[in-house]
């Protein structure tokens, strides 16, 4: 097991392995992003990226077909794109459409191209498209009244690549599903799901292409809700299911689906990570726990 302690001088806000599991990117309140080379149980710091002027909330690796690309978002309202070429990391792009802290970023399924979803405390979401010639096309829309805390893309729609969907969670305690409207070139709200009683801190759309869509939303009200919908039946409503009937002991920070197998990892304010799996009866069972 790889353990890296005190990688940063401040709180760590995100740690993500790249697609091949070789590079680990971490970001922190110390305004830096660190890239570690992970090999077996060994790790090596290979780069410290500086450029943000505030705590860096999240980092995200782009699909490898775009190259070795890392996006980061920060309290300073900026999203920076980093690229490694020949072992040298450089900042290749910056988007600063937001007026306040950018709380989450998420790369779209690679089929859509290099699309990055950013959610911000100014209540807006943006989808930035990085084009081959280096230009950016940005779609910004108002999403949640007080602030948007998290966003996640739906897995690509098989029958129609243009039918893009994403989910956001915000300070209005709502989980909203958005659909790309090519005609207006914006995202229109398709569904506003109510159920949480406090800020939604994270949403995650399961990448598994199964018969159902799965969305997990983690909230400060100490609950996690699994939203499901039948893929085939377009008209069916989103079903709400509490991940666990009683409340979690503390606020729920993050939700993360495994690439396959639909295992959900929830991290909470009690510094515990719990793993959940749906059993054959459709009930969610705890499948593991990681303590600090």
């Amino acid at each position, binding site marked *: 097991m790889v353990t890296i302690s005190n990688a940063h001088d401040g709180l760590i806000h995100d740690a993500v392995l790249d697609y091949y599991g070789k590079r680990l990117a971490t970001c922190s309140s110390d305004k830096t992003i660190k890239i570690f080379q992970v090999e077996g149980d060994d790790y090596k710091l290979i780069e410290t990226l500086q450029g943000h002027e505030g705590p860096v909330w999240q980092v995200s690796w782009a699909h490898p077909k775009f190259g070795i690309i890392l996006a980061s978002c920060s309290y300073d309202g900026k999203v920076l794109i980093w690229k490694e070429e020949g072992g040298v990391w450089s900042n290749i792009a910056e988007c600063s459409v937001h007026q306040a802290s950018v709380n989450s970023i998420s790369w779209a399924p690679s089929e859509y191209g290099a699309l990055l979803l950013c959610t911000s405390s100014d*209540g807006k979401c943006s989808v930035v498209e990085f084009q081959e010639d280096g230009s950016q096309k940005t779609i910004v829309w108002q999403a949640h009244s007080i602030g948007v805390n998290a966003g996640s893309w739906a897995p690509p729609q098989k029958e129609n690549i243009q039918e893009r969907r994403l989910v956001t969670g915000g300070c209005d305690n709502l989980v909203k599903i958005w659909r790309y409207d090519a005609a207006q070139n914006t995202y229109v709200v398709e569904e506003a799901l109510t159920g949480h009683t406090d800020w939604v801190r994270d949403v995650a759309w399961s990448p598994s292409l199964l018969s159902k869509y799965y969305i997990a939303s983690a909230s400060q009200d100490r609950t996690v809700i699994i939203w499901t919908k039948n893929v085939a039946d377009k008209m069916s409503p989103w079903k709400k299911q509490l991940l666990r009937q009683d409340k979690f002991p503390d606020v729920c920070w993050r939700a993360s689906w495994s690439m*396959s197998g639909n295992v959900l990892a929830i991290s909470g304010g009690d510094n515990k990570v719990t793993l959940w799996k749906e059993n054959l009866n459709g009930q969610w069972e705890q499948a593991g726990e*990681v303590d600090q």
Partner: protein
Amino acid sequence: MSVAPNGRDAVLAGRKGLFVIDLDDPFAAPRWLHHETSWEVADVQWSPHKSKPSWIVSTSNQKAMVWNIARPSHDAIEHVLHSHTRAITDINFHPNHPELLATCSVDSFVLSWDLRCPQSPIHQWADWRAGSSQVKWNYIDPNILASAHDSHILIWDARKGALPLHRINAHEARINGIDWSRENKHRLISCSNDMSVKFWSYNVSCDTPTYTIHTDFPVARARHVPFGDHICGIMPSRGGNNSVYIVKYGDKEQESNLRPSYIFKGHTEPVKDFVWRTRHHENSSVDDREFQLVTWSADCDLRLWPINQDIYDNFNYVKNKPLPQGIHLQDFDYRSYRPEPPTSSENSVIIRHHRGHRDAYSSPGGGRGSFTLYNDQFNHLNWISGIKVGQSAFQNVDNDFNRGFNDDTQPLNLGEEVSNVGHKFPRLRFEKISVSTGNLVISLNGPWSSDNKDGLIFIRVEIDFPENYPSKNGCPKFSLEQTHELSETKRQELLKNSREIAEKYCEARKFCLEPCMRFLLGERVSLDFTDSDEELPLDPYVIPYEGETAKNDEFSEVSGLESASISTASENVDSDEGLVPGDLKKPSFDSTPVPKGCGAIWTPSGHLVCFFNPKEAKKEQTIKFGQQGFSLMNPLRMGIPDNDRLELELTSSASSTSSLANDLDILQYDRLYRTNIPEVLRGSAVAGTLANHNYSLSTDRSQGTSNSRSKHNRNIVKIYDFTRLIPAKMELAYGYRVLGDTPENLAQHNALVAEKYGYKDIANCWKLLSILLVKDVEVDTSANGISANPQNELIDKFTRSIDRDDVALNYRFYWGSHPFGGQWLTHELMKYYEAKEDIQMLAMMSCILYEHNTNDKRSPEIPINTSYFVPVVSRTSSTEGSTSFHGIPQRPHMQSAVSFNARTLPGNATNMNRSMSTLSSISADSSLKNSESHRRRGIKQSNTTTNDNQIPHIPSIVTIEGSLPQYSPSSVASSAASNVFSHSFDKFMMNNGNANVSGSQQQRQQLKVSTDFSLPQVKLQILNKESLDLYDNVHSMDMEGMMDKEKLKLYRIEYASLLFFWGLPVSRAKILQFNYTDESETSDEYIEHRGEIGWIKQSQDSYNYRDRLREMKKCHYCLLQVKKRVTVCTHCHHIMHAECAMKWWEREKMMECASGCGCHCLEYKIVDM
């Protein structure tokens, strides 16, 4: 750090000089005795003697400075003791003799000084070899002293200069601390980096300690506790939860591990020193000493820990016990040396000069020194804001959201209030702050001029706060200084109004300084503050930071006021914004959520990356703080605001346009950030020093210690292996095959792979599938009546090992067409794995079955001919596994010593019995499959087409031997291996063979018999098999009816992407090929697959490859962008990196395009460019 013997003052030494803190009035700014030095101060000691209560010794490299702080600060150095040649490491005052002290140094000398003649030492002792780290006088015998040198201790007699009395080879590593016993003159404690504390009685033995404590951290100090019996305090130099451990060792012997009786825990960084502060009544005849532990740590906190009665009880310290005869406690003047001693007027000018020009107030640890201060009073405010009394020091550490947020906006005492106000209104000048007496003198400019409405006049207000402030009777008293600008009526009016405001607030037990100051600054103050409270949303969940909202309103008012005062009373409220550079244009309040304390993110490989930001702070609360307990921020950290302060700090920092502007750039984010984070980024202040230290810690071998969750760990990132939870297994992916053999063999192979890694369920499933997949002919159905029994036996054998009962009960027949066999079972299997969300099984099964399905179609698009891929990358041990597997299924081929190539057409086999025809058709089928694959693989046909399935049928063939020649006009091959049924045939081959045996029991007997005699070496070869139309007779399952084809495609896509993440691009391509068999397909994935990543098909007549190069971007093999050398197929226009093409065509021996388009690129021209 050292505490004065009277217990009132503490002295801290740093590179900037000495700081004297009055522990009874921590709000007062510390006294600063300048001594700029580039050397870290190793030790500072306050004289323990009554006769010299104001003497302090500190080190400065090889010199020892003797301070007399009764003298003015600029002139406080009494002596400089300079005789050591290298850095001094320790100082010790003689316990009895006020003028004597000993120093020790890295130069290995121990010197003793008489302060009456400080020019040269009076004694010197040397170890000569090892530098000395500690020196201590014996408490009882005035001539004895001990010094620690590297790993041994020397005991000296002051009267005997050359040789030590004793030498104790105490430890295996450097000794960090020694301490004599106060009760027994022969006893001492030593502690060392070897993670032990040893107790010695040097009169008993110098070789073996009386008692040894093993700790799990290197010990920096182990000292006797001044009260109780045989108690010592142990302080780790790192690790050990940054705590101080109190241990009773009274009756202990031999060795033991650390079993502390009490732990003082709370620092977030290693404790640098701990001392005891003691108080007792004067001239008392009883031992009524009160103790308080003072610790000071690298986290820049100085903490005072009250000692509760239960601790005293625990350590057998009985208060008010009569003192033994002849002993009395020394009485000390309880006075503080913090205030400057009175000096003549010239001197004070000099001091002021000094103090006025200092800047870069940096910590001794070399932390951040960027906080520039312009005047003393601001400095003082910072000092105050660093002080936390009692619980408040720990208040905000709790992330509990249920806690009211209102509490945080209220200061907790006058000190905090003053610092709040001071930070909020930078235009106020605090001329005097005395929190302990409740006296403030503030001067400011207010719009109270009687002649000029807009003009500001200077006013000075003195406020006296009563002790019970703020309460109804505890209303502060105001007095305004009379000036010529301020008319008497105005003055009275101001006084009256501010008193009114104060009363109003105090009645509600609210702090009133801020509204009063706002009033005096000329702002209208609403007295219905209660209303504003009600405006706040009641539900803290909606807007958790309502405190801030309220503050922000004030902030805009204040800033409005300020800008008014600058730009002469314009009403432009927001002019402030432009003045703060780099400020975010914030919404009405900052809705940035609190950072997540921990998180877990899945990786494609099934690992879980977790990060934690440990919250030790919570545990700190378990330590009870009494009335006196408070924690001090180190003066050297004044620049950094503390947590409690944060909300208020926000407004002040944002509104300040004056001297703070520069700092804002640096600190703003920190502060804003902190407003939302109760837990601290303490680290940033000490980052400079600690980063290196921690770094070495985390990178060296001592990962164990960092794992042990010592408080060192400010944050942890861990990667856990949770692949067991993910149904898709990477190791299986390395072994699995989907192409290159008959489906049943592939299924068998996959079963073996799964078995090898211990996945029994999956292995069983594959076995079932392989049975299902055996191509059977309909003739057999008619023979069913006869041949059912052995089959059932076999199937029973299989199913018994299978867990799923329903399968076992229902699966009775083996051919695919049977409703319980093919359709039902595969359907069930698919459903099962769908429910299990095992994308790997779904995709693999769909591939295997798919091939089966399309075999009876015309389409030869299905690339069943690609050879098996052995991963080149050895990521796991599975490489060996897969290669060995690679061999197994091939074995029958290689061993085709006896190879039959029956080509009995069912229709033609008229002269045979029915069972014979069955057999031969089976074999024909399999052989055809094999031969076909051979053909496609491009292996020359001259070698014999083998058929392992046929081997069991040898007996039956033997019976028809006579008829064989007519079907095999070709050569009868010679062959070797006499024993085909040797052990080399794996059990599965047997099974497989048996499964194919549709012969009767009788035949099976025959088979048995036949193993005994050597077999005829006959070889059959099929000629012009293309003309054969055996496929028509093959019965296969209809996948379409069972599963949603689209769904299966999705599974394959998803599995393919997984394979890609796992570094198996070839496997990915193979899986994807099943999705793109049909040319007419125009799904989006198809476009993606063939178009976007790769060559965009243009008009066929365009042969300008350069033009097209611009269109195509991605290599089909590795999916990365193509830049330099490229190979393009002229037929399908798919591209690859030159290296990838090399790999694909040469190393993998592939026949088809990597894109999966089915193009045999090698048969066309491949352009290299």
